[in-house]
């Protein structure tokens, strides 16, 4: 759980870090209402659309007592030129009740989107991983991932 001041400070720090990665779209954090969202979108240059890749970092927080609790996240890397998409997710499903599930959506350049197991990640960890995946030159590689299976 984060205090309002800590969440505001984290948001400001993330803007500072991510503005070094590319053009940034920011949702202004509004802690006067719940839920609140850290929603940061980064576009890096190149490609026909003016950008070849976008990153999105979305965290949803709800107020709990005197603080704010992270209840879900989506961190994603999306190529604009058909080279695929890679996403880290943590949220509940209709079939999981209130239980949030760590998982990956992986869309290779050829083939169907798949859903795979994942583990807890901070936004900063996801950023480092997604940047490395992008810098490797693509296309998105889904090999080595384990199918989503809660049995």
């Amino acid at each position, binding site marked *: 759980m984060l205090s309002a001041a800590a969440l505001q400070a984290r948001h400001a720090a993330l803007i500072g870090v991510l503005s*070094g*990665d*590319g053009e940034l779209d*920011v949702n202004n954090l509004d802690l006067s209402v719940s839920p609140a969202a850290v*929603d940061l979108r980064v576009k*890096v240059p190149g490609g026909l659309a003016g950008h070849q890749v976008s990153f999105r970092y979305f965290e949803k927080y709800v107020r709990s007592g005197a603080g704010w609790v992270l209840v879900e996240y989506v961190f994603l890397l999306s190529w604009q030129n058909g080279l695929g998409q890679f996403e880290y997710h943590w949220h509940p*499903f*209709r079939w999981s009740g209130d239980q949030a599930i760590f998982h990956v959506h992986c869309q290779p350049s050829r083939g169907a989107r798949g*859903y795979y197991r994942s583990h807890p990640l901070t936004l900063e960890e996801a950023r480092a991983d997604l940047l490395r995946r992008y810098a490797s030159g693509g296309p998105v590689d889904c090999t080595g991932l384990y199918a989503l*299976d809660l049995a």
Partner: protein
Amino acid sequence: MDQFEHKAFYSPAEVALILDVSHSYVTDSIRAGRIAAIHLSPRVRRVAYGTLMALLERPLPVRRRRMTPAEIEAVSQTLRDEEVPAPVRRYATR
């Protein structure tokens, strides 16, 4: 018009060329933390586009908006992709 290619990452050598400084100045600055770099591997470092533009004193714009709680829920639902199938249980549960 810039005389360099706009792309996501730049090697220290490219940064040195664009900034018209020595390669060792860039690598030393990265090592000292004066220039933020992404570590792709223990030996490979890259400087991101936004960092380079800030070094050129042309920081990229930051666009801001404000989402309502309803918009936050809508974004959450859109990003979730509820087509994720329920997992098949392979083992009997007690």
